[in-house]
């Protein structure tokens, strides 16, 4: 039950297409077909003995574990992980917007910072871990820094390419009105770059979740990553899967929030996605 409810929640953000839906009984949303098939398939495979239970606990067991966790301190782990992501993301994305804007708008700053940042971007997340552990210890700081690093680069890229991709023709209009540099950024460049920036933010957020797990696998006392490694170390594959399900859920929820924000701020867009959603002309 729990698993199905979770899957249903996960499908809420997607638009409901017509057509194929008529083939399915009742009002069964298309988005749930794949998860439902996978869950049923997994359950049957384990009960029939095709998949060993110690490697793949059946969804029913994972659901039971989730229920048990909910009564035994799951809230603490959820809050810990979510707070880490939130804080790390805000710091990383904030720095990225600032630096990205500076790099995009000033050629000297670009020449100064961009090459270094691009090089740093190439470093994979796990490679940062030993260094951060060494410099910042094992408490919250290295985890937050790691998450901030993860969020930084997609947002930075989004901001730089967003500003760079603003239609020259619009900028010319702004020049007609002799807008001061700050007014130019605020009234023209920022709104025009917003689609790319929001895409960057969205990617940055999902990477923040990813880096959070990496951070918690190092040395944590609380959180979903801690739960994950807990399950790993005590041969509890059901806990591992439960943690993964929760991570997917939280990631999906936060993404849904970003999508809603995007829709709100970018309602003026006239592109393929808008036309598919049937926006009026």
């Amino acid at each position, binding site marked *: 039950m729990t698993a199905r409810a979770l899957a249903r929640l996960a499908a809420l953000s997607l638009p409901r297409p017509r057509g194929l839906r008529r083939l399915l009984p009742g009002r069964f949303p298309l988005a749930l077909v794949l998860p439902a098939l996978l869950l049923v398939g997994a359950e049957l495979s384990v009960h029939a003995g095709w998949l*060993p*239970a*110690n*490697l793949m606990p059946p969804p029913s067991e994972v659901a039971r*574990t989730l229920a*048990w966790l909910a009564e*035994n*301190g799951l809230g603490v782990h959820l809050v810990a992980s979510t707070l880490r992501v939130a804080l790390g993301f805000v710091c990383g994305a904030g720095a990225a917007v600032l630096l990205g804007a500076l790099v995009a708008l000033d050629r000297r700053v670009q020449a100064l910072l961009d090459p270094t940042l691009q090089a740093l971007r190439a470093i994979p997340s796990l490679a940062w871990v030993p260094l951060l552990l060494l410099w910042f*210890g*094992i*408490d919250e700081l290295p985890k937050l820094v790691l998450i901030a690093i993860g969020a930084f680069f997609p947002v930075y890229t989004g901001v730089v390419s967003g500003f760079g991709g603003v239609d020259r023709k619009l900028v010319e209009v702004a020049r007609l009105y002799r807008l001061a540099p700050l007014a130019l950024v605020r009234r023209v460049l920022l709104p025009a770059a917003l689609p790319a920036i929001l895409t960057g933010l969205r990617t940055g957020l999902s990477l923040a979740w990813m880096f959070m797990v990496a951070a918690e696998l190092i*040395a*944590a*006392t609380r959180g979903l990553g*801690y739960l994950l*490694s*807990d399950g*790993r*170390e*005590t*041969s*509890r*594959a*059901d806990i591992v899967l439960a943690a993964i399900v929760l991570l997917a859920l939280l990631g999906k929820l936060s993404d849904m929030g970003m999508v809603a924000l995007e829709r709100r701020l970018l309602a003026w867009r006239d592109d393929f996605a808008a036309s598919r959603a049937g926006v009026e002309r």
Partner: protein
Amino acid sequence: MKRRTLLQLAAGSVAASALPRLVAAAPLDEVRLDYAYYSPTSLVLRRFGWLEQAFKAEGTNVKWVFSAGSNRALEYLNGNSIDIGSSAGLAALLARANGNPIRSPYIFSRPEWTALVVPKDSPIRSVADLKGKKVAATKGTDPYLFLLRSLQVAGLKRGDIEHVSLQHADGRAALEQGKVDAWAGLDPHMAASELERGSRLLYRNVAFNTYGFLNVREQFLAAHPDATARVIQAYERARAWVRANSTEAAKILAEEAKVSLPVALLQIKLRSDFSQPLPGNEHLAALRQAAPILRDEALVKPGVDLGRAITDLVETRFAQPYLVKA
């Protein structure tokens, strides 16, 4: 025509089942086992290549995988990455209770390999003082379970301390850098910390150490009993050698684990006992004594039959014919 083939088949299968099980069911390409700093015998075995010699005739390859702790060895066994792995007894029980399909036919040592460690100048005097403090321990290993049992003795629970999950070597580093207040240590890291940095053993309890179990994947044991037997024989050879040459064994440990000779000597001479390799009542009793902590701290799924898990895990007869009388 058909009936003749059927009869032949029937005759053949009867004959086959009557043959004593001397030969392996299928030829073995590779036997994969672990080596670890907490199992000096494994290091000796690997160093001298006795296992490779034993398997050369069949052309079976021997693959050695490093295990950083019971947790890793058990994980590799669970995922079928190794066939034979070394771990603490209680850790093996935890794994077995959670569905890891392993059996333990051999005890590679009786160590006092874990204790609670605090830094040299720590104000902490007793286990009860650990309340609210940060304690490093590798989950799923004997030190971690030792920690829980020690806390229980002092009237505390897992939630009363702040547990930081770090692998053994990292836990030592964290203790010495002052990032944690205490550490559930494991030899040789623990011995090294004592001798090199003056760390203090806050709490010792020999009875809380649950032996070194050599675990075998159930499937492997059933399919290749002869290969398993050969491994045990090789282990016996190494055990005899270690007992006769403890200083040399310490040298090998020091080289492999990159610790000083005094540290290695401390571990092997003072804190390891290699005299009882066959799992028996002594070990079963120790596990039964220790088992409740697994339930109390919710490390096993609710409703698991721990007694059954113990008997499923411990194999008390398999190794008997292969032991070296000493």
